[in-house]
């Protein structure tokens, strides 16, 4: 089950795959040793910043992505002030999006995060917050590129493909 979720992302880097632990431990692990906590330079044209909040519980999440010239996410950082599930959701998300195309990252559903971390129903909104955060980061990246007169490498506003990009939908392997 777990493996099949992970395999949906072709770009998933392999190191952590064989993990035969309980889900609960995974949440614990993420919020005790959160991955990729930190900041990227938000003025950088290659960086997209997503800043989202959860009115229902008062959590705040910042997710930043760096996009390389191939339109893939080369780096992701987060900072979350919230409950353990929100921290774990965003921590896991930064691992998940690593190496993904923007299209693939934009299609990540909260259910993937919730399943991976085995979040109880009352904590589903934490995974939704993470889904919002990546969407918001991608939007930020793309609108920043548009404003700067550079076409986004992928996505709905993508212009005709240049030599370094592929057209949207045709996310190559």
């Amino acid at each position: 089950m777990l493996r099949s979720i992970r395999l949906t992302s072709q770009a998933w880097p392999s190191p952590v795959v064989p993990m035969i632990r309980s889900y609960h431990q995974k949440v614990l692990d993420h919020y005790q040793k959160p991955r990729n906590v930190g900041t990227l330079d938000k003025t950088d044209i290659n960086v997209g910043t997503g800043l989202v909040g959860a009115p229902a519980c008062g959590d705040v999440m910042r997710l930043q992505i760096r996009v390389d010239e191939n339109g893939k996410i080369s780096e992701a950082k987060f900072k979350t002030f919230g409950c353990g599930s929100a921290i774990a959701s965003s921590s896991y998300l930064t691992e998940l999006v690593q190496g993904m195309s923007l299209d693939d990252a934009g299609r990540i559903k909260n259910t993937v995060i919730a399943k991976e971390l085995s979040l109880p129903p009352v904590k589903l909104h934490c995974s939704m917050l993470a889904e919002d955060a990546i969407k918001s980061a991608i939007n930020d990246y793309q609108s920043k590129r548009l404003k700067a007169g550079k076409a986004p490498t992928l996505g709905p506003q993508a212009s005709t493909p240049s030599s370094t990009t592929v057209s949207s939908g045709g996310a190559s392997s």
Partner: protein
Amino acid sequence: MKAIRFLARRSSRPTNVRFSSTQNFYSLFPKTFNNNTKPFNFDVRELRNEFIKLQSQHHPDHAPQNEKEQYEERSSTLNKAYSCLKDPLLRAEHLLQLAGYSLKGDQAEHTDISDQEFYMTILDIHEAVEEAQTEKDLEPIITANNDRIKSLISKLTDAFESEDYNTAKDLTVKLRYWKNLERTLREWGPGKPIMFTH
């Protein structure tokens, strides 16, 4: 029949919560809130006095044998009502619920662009708390947060008075973020990671 209802109430928490959220807690304290009023701002000490009085009048230990269940139920409802009304955030949520505005559920996902600055401020302040070395570093943050909460409560009073529930809703959501910060500040320890429990 009664026993069944009692057991059901006891065993299923969600139903319990739902039940209590639609009930008007103000009406349980007729002395403090006469004429069916539901003020946002009131004297909490007065409420406390009435609460203690009511609890001692209907203490389950003093209940006649055949009315024990009602006494227990009443006592537990009073506890819930009091702890809700004495807390500004829970009270605001309760008033919004009574007016048909809900803050719970899956409304967590909508994020307004106009909120960006607000979230940025919150994040900055939490980061400052995280970087604090001593309690002294926290003092200005605590003072600023107390002022913020005070001002929100006064705005909430106005909003509820003029029955401007949309404004009240926005203010209540903001109050929730700052209450989280307040708790973070209270539980702060040098080098201790910040994590909410809710």
